[in-house]
């Protein structure tokens, strides 16, 4: 099957990634330079159930956009963009305006940088990112936009000194990762246990101050393939070392490994690390005990398939396999990580010699459906796109990746010690739902 045609495409484009980034920062405002409808497509591809635009209490139809028409496609749209920027700064107050460009003006060749430069010369904080859909997916859009914002901010704000214990969290794509806000919150809490301060950049109370502090961090913690390039840029320009963990750990084992890795990079007393690990693991073990009887009586051990982006899927897979006795048949990674990172991802998932796991990288819905049908899992963890197969196999579907249109996530997370408890809860719900359905 030729690779380029995508069945049931689940990932939005670079422009969508850019919008998700800008909308998730309090005080950042996007300006779309494209034909109409791009922001609506973006919204329909992820968390439409949350009717706002990221963290602003701003409706999802309130995005400044040039919505260019035929005349501007034929004769160029820079004048229209100039006018839109000039008026956006009058209407929508912001600390930073980010012009994101769609396919039409990119093909036509509008000189967008000239327009933002003009606005900058007038004293307005406006930057632009080139994000046509034909150049990259939503994850690339995240990477390019974060890099562009950092570049702008570091022009004005050189690092004065390293803030001891300040950690930048990189790689969580807001809104594309359904659990982003909960993941960031939980990660922040866990770092807090080690007396570290987290710089999350996105979500509640995250604003330009957090971005200004980016170059003062002691360490960059990278929890998905999509933060790696950003971390490399920060190392090169500001000399900040990074820890590439590559995924969000779930449960005692991996979370404790993360703490050890942090201890190695930072000066944290071994005594504190041991104390935190002991406390948290003990609490988790307590919850495990409570689930044990049901686990046996209702046969919680299942053959599992997972579908979703690297950051969540690797951690959840490893927890299910290494701590919860699950048999991982197939894991499908849908965010299209760079080739150089793939061997490591496969290695981190396929760890059970007695029950090997097939790890596949695909964004093609048809291929994913076929792999799942072949694997015949007893529980699927994935997106709403896997609903059809889960119905056909009459198995439960636990939602861990976009798109999902019938569950609101708020602060839900599977990260860390407490995330594992959430996962146990959702897993048990899924098993009982299946039992109930088979009775009918």
């Amino acid at each position, binding site marked *: 099957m030729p690779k380029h*045609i995508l069945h049931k495409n689940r990932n939005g484009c670079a422009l969508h990634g850019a919008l998700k980034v800008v909308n998730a920062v309090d005080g950042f405002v996007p300006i779309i330079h494209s034909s109409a409808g791009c922001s609506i497509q973006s919204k329909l591809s992820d968390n439409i159930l949350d009717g706002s635009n990221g963290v602003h209490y701003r409706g999802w139809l309130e995005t400044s956009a040039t*919505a260019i028409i035929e005349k501007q496609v034929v004769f160029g749209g820079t004048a229209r963009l100039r006018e839109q920027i000039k008026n956006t700064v009058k209407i929508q107050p912001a600390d930073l305006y980010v012009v994101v460009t769609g396919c039409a003006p990119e093909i036509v060749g509008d000189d967008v940088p000239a327009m933002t430069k003009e606005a900058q010369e007038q004293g307005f904080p406006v930057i632009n990112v080139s994000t046509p859909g034909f150049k990259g997916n939503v994850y690339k859009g995240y990477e390019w936009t974060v890099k562009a914002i950092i570049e702008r901010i570091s022009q004005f704000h050189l690092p004065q000194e390293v803030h001891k214990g300040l950690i930048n969290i990189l790689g969580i794509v807001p809104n594309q990762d359904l659990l982003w806000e909960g993941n960031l919150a939980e990660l922040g809490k866990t770092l807090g246990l080690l007396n570290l301060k987290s710089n999350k950049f996105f979500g509640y109370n995250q604003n330009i101050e957090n971005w200004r502090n980016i170059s003062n961090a002691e360490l960059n913690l990278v929890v998905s393939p999509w933060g790696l390039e950003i971390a490399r840029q920060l190392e090169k320009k500001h000399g900040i070392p990074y820890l590439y963990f590559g995924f969000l750990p779930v449960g005692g084992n991996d979370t404790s490994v993360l703490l050890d890795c942090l201890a190695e990079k930072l000066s944290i007393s071994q005594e504190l690390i041991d104390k935190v690990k002991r406390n948290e693991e003990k609490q988790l073990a307590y919850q495990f005990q409570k689930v044990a009887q049901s686990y046996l009586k209702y046969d919680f051990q299942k053959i599992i398939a997972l579908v979703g982006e690297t950051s969540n899927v690797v951690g959840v897979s490893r927890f299910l396999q290494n701590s919860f006795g699950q048999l991982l048949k197939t894991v499908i990674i849908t965010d299209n990580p760079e080739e150089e990172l793939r061997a490591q991802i496969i290695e981190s998932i396929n760890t059970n010699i007695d029950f090997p796991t097939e790890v596949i990288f695909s964004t093609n819905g048809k291929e994913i459906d076929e792999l799942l049908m072949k694997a015949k899992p007893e529980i699927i963890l994935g997106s709403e796109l896997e609903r059809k197969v889960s119905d056909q196999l009459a198995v439960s579907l636990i939602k861990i990746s976009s798109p999902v249109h019938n569950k609101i996530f708020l602060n839900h997370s599977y990260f860390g010690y407490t995330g594992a408890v959430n996962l146990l809860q959702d897993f048990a719900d899924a098993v009982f739902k299946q039992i109930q359905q088979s009775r009918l």
Partner: protein
Amino acid sequence: MSILKQKVAAIREKRLQAISAYYGKVETLLQENAEGQFVQRVRTFSQDSQSDILYALRIITTIKDSAIVVHGAAGCAVARLFTNLIDENNGKWVVTNLNERDSIMGSDVKLREAIRQVYKFHIPKIIFIISTPVVAINNDDIESVVEEQKDELGIAIVPVYSDGFRSKIGTTGYDLVSHSIIKHILLPNIAELADFVNLISVSEKVEDIKEVNTLLNEIGLKTNLFPRYASFDNIKKLNTASFSVSINPDEANYPGIVLENRYQIPFIHSVIPIGINNTASWITDIGIATGCEAKAQSLIHSEKDRLNTLLNKGRAINKLKVFINFSPAYAFGIADLLEELDMEVVGIKLSYIDHQHLEHLEKIKSYKPDFAILVGDGQLFEEENVLQKIKPELYIGDSGDFAVAIRNGIPVVDLENIAILGFNGVQNLADKIRKVLSNTSFTQLLSKNETKSYTKEWLKKSPNWFIKQEVK
């Protein structure tokens, strides 16, 4: 000449003088019309709005036995993810996933491959091809691939030439779909007439379609649904109907006219059946045209009696000041209904307006000469400005557009959740309004949030500050 000779449906700006940017008295619009046509205005600040691509997808996803090829960059297909949950064609879509090279070199090879794949995997009776900006700008040849594949696969292939930038009125996307379906699936000959009417539904909810269908059945008419939720068989039968009947006259207008133009099927182009009197007029118009007038009158009579006894029960809702935000036919229909409930419409926002609405404008002018209307799709910055000035007590609107109302503490009735059409719709809306007003604590809570959406300077300005006459 047949309208269908054209490759694509004319945009609504050209065909109906539709406009999508206006704020002010209706008198000005009527004056402009008297002098020739509505003046096209543009916004020098705008917010994102619906495109023809989104509207086209919205109908096509409901058409049975079909599969979709979105021809463009991958992002243009993700709106499909949302409709995937609710439509008939769960999972039957592909995107040609054009990259930078394709945007320069052309993409017919990928289109051909996509059509073949979607056929091989789903064996649909119809394949729709949705064109997008990249393809439209490069003027990629879709037509010849379609012709070639039609011959090879022996099924209907329907190209929908949406592009995202020709029209500012998203509803144009609906017209594009009807145009292409009739042009590419139906033969031009006039067939033998059958004893049913085409019920033209473009965007109605399932519950609303059921209500309308029941009314038509009760006066003795059988229906053939098109284009929403149509099957391949529904489409094949279109040219054998004895009449075409509109539900929403704005949206049904194009398919109704095309069928009349090509097959001489009389198009009953009535008011939207919202409210007691409008529903009665709608049934009467259809009854007279189809010879079912006696049954129509007896149905109206019994339904009116039933409603009169039901409507006045419960909390008093009369004299309430209401703001309406909807597409035009719906908005005017709801305004009439609210009048029947003795409520006061203090503001109207329409996603667009065109020459089909002159009568409504005349009516507003005669009752309230100073009444200002806002015309815009989305454009919530203007809506917030207006709402803060007129301070309505209730907001009735379409899902997604009401963020502004809520943060200003105005209770919202979202029509997405209720069937509004027909006699039952009157009761449904009255019940819903009573229910919403019986506990507004959540709205009050949300209105306490601090919002920084717009500057104070803007909210003090006139709502039409950024609406300018286009420089030619």
